[in-house]
């Protein structure tokens, strides 16, 4: 088909793109976009996809030790969902012109980052409850906003994920509430998990706005619609009453409702710890990457078998056709 070809300057294309963003339009894979928009999205979306994949590891640690068959089935389903969520986002990232093998390679070689939160260990069963409540809770706060992102494939993946993620948070909170109403030992166990996971969860919403070099640009492009600090505030405001409802204490003596700002004031976040974990020095960084590499290597024979199977079938089809 004849396509109307018009020479358009980079400047004009850029202006058109910015106007579309300002008008709240959705950008689709084949649309013209500035190279920087593309690379920023690849970075952000692939980090998000890797986080879903690595996020399976801390929880997978408890599948064989879940305290009942029901809890085991639920945890299996949740971890499988995380794999699915990783795949939704990988497929969205690929629409930007990078292929899957390259993305996986970036994760396995340690070149790509993933959420700092998954570098903490899951020491007790209560951790599984608290992860669903805090970590999935924080993820929902973040993803609900990303569902309105300007890049269509990202927004659509987020909508799909948000629909499924509420089960994750609720099953976690149910575990927490059950333990909080259990024996003194169970209550102590869940309080300990809350104490260990609270601050890493507060941090997982990302560096403070004053220290987040990408935020302004991503907000202008409507990839992000809220800053990290706004998301953090929302997560804290939602979570404090949920802790009160099950009689658990969040480990922050400065946590106090501020009627003026209609939200909670909270204490200093230990950003040194956050950056240490991001740079690879968290408690489980090496273990997580090794587990991913092993999974990739140990899955090789499955991929080879699938390839051999499809090669055999296509040969058979060719010979019957001939």
């Amino acid at each position: 088909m004849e396509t109307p070809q018009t020479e358009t300057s980079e400047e004009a294309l850029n202006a058109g793109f910015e106007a579309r963003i300002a008008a709240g339009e959705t950008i689709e894979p084949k649309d013209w976009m500035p190279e920087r928009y593309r690379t920023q999205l690849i970075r952000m979306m692939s980090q998000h996809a890797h986080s879903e994949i690595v996020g399976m590891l801390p929880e997978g640690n408890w599948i064989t030790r879940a305290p009942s068959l029901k809890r085991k089935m639920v945890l299996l389903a949740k971890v499988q969902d995380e794999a699915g969520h990783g795949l939704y986002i990988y497929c969205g990232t690929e629409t930007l012109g990078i292929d899957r093998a390259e993305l996986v390679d970036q994760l396995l070689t340690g070149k790509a980052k993933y959420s700092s939160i998954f570098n903490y260990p899951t020491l007790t069963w209560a951790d599984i409850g608290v992860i669903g409540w805090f970590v999935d809770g924080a993820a929902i706060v973040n993803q609900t906003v990303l569902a309105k992102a300007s890049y269509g494939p990202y927004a659509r993946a987020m909508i799909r994920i948000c629909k499924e993620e509420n089960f994750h948070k609720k099953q976690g909170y149910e575990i927490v509430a059950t333990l909080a109403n259990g024996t003194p030992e169970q209550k102590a166990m869940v309080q300990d998990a809350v104490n260990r996971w609270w601050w890493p969860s507060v941090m997982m919403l990302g560096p403070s706005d004053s220290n987040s070099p990408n935020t302004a640009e991503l907000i202008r492009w409507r990839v992000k619609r809220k800053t990290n600090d706004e998301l953090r505030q929302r997560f804290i405001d939602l979570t404090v009453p949920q802790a009160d409802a099950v009689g658990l204490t969040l480990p922050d003596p400065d946590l106090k409702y501020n009627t003026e700002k209609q939200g909670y004031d909270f204490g200093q976040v230990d950003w040194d710890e956050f950056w240490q974990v991001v740079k690879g020095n968290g408690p489980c960084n090496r273990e997580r990457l090794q587990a991913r590499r092993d999974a990739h290597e140990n899955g090789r024979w499955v991929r080879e078998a699938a390839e051999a199977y499809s090669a055999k079938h296509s040969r058979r089809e060719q010979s019957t056709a001939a």
Partner: protein
Amino acid sequence: MESNESQWPLWEVFTQEDGGAPHEHAGSVHAPDAEIALQNARDVYGRRGRVVSVWVVPSNEITASQSEWAGPFFDPGADKAYRHPQFYKIPRGLKGF
């Protein structure tokens, strides 16, 4: 790390939910053949039980309109108001036309 492994072809996935909805684009999967693509599509996009049918199509078999010519290409649909029922007048006071 992936040097001795080939990237499996990409397949676009369309799912239909129960209740007579049309097939809708859900996302994509990588698979070496159509049969495995269908199974992967089921596992990735049909975990919640609402899906009753899945199509997989090799991504490179899809011909799509180009966004740059979206204006002229769809133009013929924009200026024919007489394709809409609001274009026509019926006598005032007539109910339940």
